[in-house]
């Protein structure tokens, strides 16, 4: 019984560690994406009000990409 409980706990730990690692990877990717796109300087990253304000000011049309 004790062995069984230990095995379940070990399995749970492996699963939660793997899930946490996958989560961290995804977080890193999202942050990396923001850094890369922001560095290009051509895009308003995730900031629609800023894009709208710039379009109003410049008279340019907007290209809004969901990705």
């Amino acid at each position: 019984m004790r062995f069984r409980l230990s095995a379940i706990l070990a399995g749970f730990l492996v699963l939660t560690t793997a899930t946490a690692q996958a989560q961290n990877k995804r977080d890193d990717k999202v942050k990396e994406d923001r850094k890369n796109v922001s560095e290009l300087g051509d895009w308003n990253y995730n900031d629609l009000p800023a894009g709208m304000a710039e379009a109003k000011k410049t008279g340019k049309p907007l290209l809004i990409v969901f990705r």
Partner: protein
Amino acid sequence: MDQFVCVRIVQANALDLSLFQFDYDLTFAAFFMNADKTIYGRFGTRSDTKDATRDISIEGFRKALVSALEWHKQYPANKDLFRDKRQAESKHKTPAEYPSLRGKFKATLNYDKNVARSCMHCHQIHNARQRLYRSQRKPVPDHIIYPWPLPTVVGLSLDPREMAKVRQVTKDSLAEQAGFRSGDEIQSINGQPILSIADVQWVLHTARDGNKLKAKVVRNGQEQSLDISLERGWRTKEDISWRTTSWDLRRMAAGGLHLIRLPDRDRRKAKLTGKEMALFVDHVGQYGEHAVAKRAGFRHDDIIVSFDGRTDLMSETELFAYVLKKRMAGEVVPVTLIRGGGRLKLKLRMQ
């Protein structure tokens, strides 16, 4: 591109649903609009689970950009042309107003902690719409089951390298009846200027059974008018199984099973003709509400030949549509399947 103000949106949290109406199953979608929130057009089309680029191209995107710029130069004299590119205000102003999403996401992303988890995905909006009907025990209407129909549903295959140029017209289709021919360049539908396949999909998305679509096309340099009559049930020819949102439909309608049409060679082995229902269980969900079929005894490799007494559900999409319209959450349906050469009857609870 430098003639545009470019905005990249990476999440659906607090999205203005009265403005950003697009195919929420896409992984790439674009809007061309102006600071008055007038939409010139949309871009982004998909019909395959894995291949996100089959229905779009850089050439097509470039042509759409050029057209949008041209229309912007003519603005506001042409303002009325774009009036129907947006629908009336949505009852739910943001995704968070849908019951299944309420309280789950903040308006902005949390870059300091679990940023990926703080991000609402676009497809969750469409899932929330489907779930709303299910939770109210109402049949899900066709325009929710089959959103953003591809032009192929009316028989038009459009060239992804162009804005909306007809590559092929399906024999005996609604488009053929309307008089479309390959090479036709669609200029407008119901008065709306068209700059992409997504623009054609927008018109189809907002159309209903019995509507007549008035298309203007250019053929050999001459403008022609063509009328497409949308007969009852025209949308139901659409395949929705590629959509991300189908994952949740598998939970609702199939207890977590992923079903594919049994290939012809396997039909012969199972002594089934091509006209008989035969849905192969390609995957059995393993956890939570996606494991309802597993707990009911379904296995990988099973072949479903009857579902709730129906033997005419020839695809996963048809099975989803049947359940979403006719069977409510909590109901139990009998299912007959072939396993190891023999027939077996199981019961499956709808969700």
